[in-house]
């Protein structure tokens, strides 16, 4: 609820300075919100189906709310994998990919940046995850022992 405290305070301060500008910003907010809403709707439908198909994820996601979805599923799961003897490299690749490659957020990204940039950016994210994994392997002695 911090968000609403901040947003509320900002609105009050704005109102104190200029009524006209405040009304204008609320109008802009509403227009922007309505414009992008279909993309959000598509994302939520995707999330709802994916979470049904992957029940293990649902536990983490419902606890942590969709706000923190990637992290709050990834890290407890990664912790378990680590205890089971899975290499740091693999865990790094898995968690970084989960953070950087947004399949579920793609409808929103596409609405703002277009399909091409969305694909390029996510492919880059995937390669960064691989790079992180390799370096992780060196530092934890999993490569070149």
């Amino acid at each position, binding site marked *: 609820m911090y*968000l609403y405290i*901040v*947003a509320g305070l*900002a*609105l009050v301060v*704005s109102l104190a300075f200029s009524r006209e*500008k*405040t009304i*204008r*910003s*609320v109008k*802009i*907010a*509403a227009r*922007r919100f309505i*414009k992008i809403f279909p993309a*959000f*709707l*598509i994302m*939520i*439908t995707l*999330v*709802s189906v994916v979470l*049904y198909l992957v029940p293990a994820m649902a536990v983490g996601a419902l606890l942590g*709310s*969709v*706000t*923190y*979805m*990637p*992290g*709050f599923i*990834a*890290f407890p799961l*990664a*912790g378990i994998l680590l205890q089971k003897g899975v290499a*740091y490299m693999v*865990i*790094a690749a898995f*968690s*970084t990919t989960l*953070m*950087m490659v*947004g399949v579920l*957020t793609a409808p*929103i*990204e596409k*609405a*703002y*940046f*277009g399909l091409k940039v969305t694909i390029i*950016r996510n492919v*880059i*994210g995937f390669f*960064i*995850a691989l*790079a*992180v994994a390799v*370096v992780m392997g060196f*530092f934890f002695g999993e490569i070149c022992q």
Partner: protein
Amino acid sequence: MKRSTLSKILLIASYFIFIGVSWLMGFNPGQQIGQNFVVFFVDMLKILPGAFILIGLFEVWVKRETVERHLGEESGFRGYLWMILLGSTAVGGLYLAFPVAYTLYSKGARLSVIFTYLGAAAICRLPMTIFEASFLGIKFTAIRWLVSLPLVIITSILLGNYLTRRGYRVEAGK
């Protein structure tokens, strides 16, 4: 109406018909998917209006010159540092980073800077980082930050320059 818009409407409509029929017929998978939808929809509604009000206020009150000076063509390396700071403290998930990035861009931030923001919002949000370090250790988190952040900045510069050369412009809601 564009064909892509029409197919999106059809997709969403058939989704809701599926959920509706599932409830009427007691089809369990459909009911659960419907429940998931409601949970996330409510979650979104808790966050989005507040975030968009802040975006609106930013749009009206912050001068274009200010954004250009700190995040535009002349901002140099400082622009990236700002974005890492902003990205690491970002509220919500990546889905909120896109509208914020778009707002910054429309106010004069250059492309490489907003791609850095998106990358930073994805990989170094602080609540997530603390969570990560407690499960996987500080060494893991430190390596991940030190490797991924420079790569995010470098690839953002490359992608930004490439797209700028090609005359690419961000047009929301296309």
